[in-house]
């Protein structure tokens, strides 16, 4: 496993055509796990997450020459991963009915959670799964990824004020869902 290096070093390697693949590998090693979980919280299954994550990295590879350092690499990668996840979810929604899909996701979670035996975590996952997509994204990025509102704003292109409102609404909805059950 390669060691984790700074973004500047990664971009320097990538800028050199002879070192492109090596630099890209460093990029993947550094960001694959946070991006994996960011995607998985949206699409649920490992198989779908793997597809979306690979597509994300392929997009990144194709467009890396167009990346401008005025935005942070981390933010840029999150944008692409978010875009790919939403595209995937929209395609999946067309293929299946939302109710079947949602039920299936909940059943999957229920199965895995029953193994863990953590009732509260199951409720949390259920509550998150029924949030609107935007609120779900904001909640996940703030709660799990601990991103600042400025970072989330750079990814989603929404004002900080709007994001705070979304996050607060999401937290309140989740809390009342957990208490109601």
């Amino acid at each position, binding site marked *: 496993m390669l060691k984790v290096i700074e973004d500047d070093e990664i971009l320097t390697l990538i800028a050199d055509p002879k070192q492109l693949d090596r630099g890209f590998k460093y990029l993947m090693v550094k960001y694959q796990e946070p991006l994996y979980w960011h995607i998985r919280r949206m699409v649920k299954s*490992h198989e779908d997450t793997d597809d979306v994550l690979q597509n994300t990295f392929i997009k990144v590879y194709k467009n890396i020459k167009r990346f401008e350092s005025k935005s942070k690499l981390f933010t840029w990668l999150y944008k692409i991963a978010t875009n790919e996840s939403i595209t995937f979810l929209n395609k999946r929604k067309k293929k299946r009915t939302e109710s079947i899909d949602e039920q299936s996701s909940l059943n999957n979670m229920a199965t895995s959670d029953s193994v863990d035996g953590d009732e509260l975590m199951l409720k949390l996952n259920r509550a998150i799964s029924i949030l609107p997509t935007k609120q779900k994204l904001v909640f996940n990025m703030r*709660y799990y990824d601990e991103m600042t509102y400025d970072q989330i704003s750079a990814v989603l292109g929404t004002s900080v004020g709007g994001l705070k409102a979304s996050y607060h609404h999401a937290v309140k909805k989740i809390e009342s869902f957990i208490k109601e059950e």
Partner: protein
Amino acid sequence: MKNEDIKKELSELSQTLAHLPKVNRGEVPDGYFDQLPDNVLNKVTSTSSVSNQETSKVIPLFLKAMGIAASFAILLFVISSQKTTESAEAIPVDSMVEFIMDDIGELDEDFLFEVSNEMRDVAELDDETLNYMLEEEIDLIDDKILESIY
């Protein structure tokens, strides 16, 4: 500091959530993250080489098809030339069929089979190319989104 702010905000909004452990749910196959970078790089490399192969394959087949079409055009020209030198009545249908079978027919089943296969290959590749282009169009849409967020 950043984490503290987030924790403080959360505890003000919901004590329940603030006390829940944050764990990533779901299992990941062993060695997945060790293999992923190589898998992606292999995919990127093979995609670009397949794409290059398709491009180089389509052109010769297309040229072949053009060549075949040209061959038919020449044959038709020969037949029509024959018509201009002799009156239509002077060339019975049977003779024309015989001419085609004797002179073109010698190009024979193998040739026609090859033509058929070539044309089918071109048609198949055309679909593949079309699919490829459709996929690329999706990429272009995504690229536009990406451009807008750069």
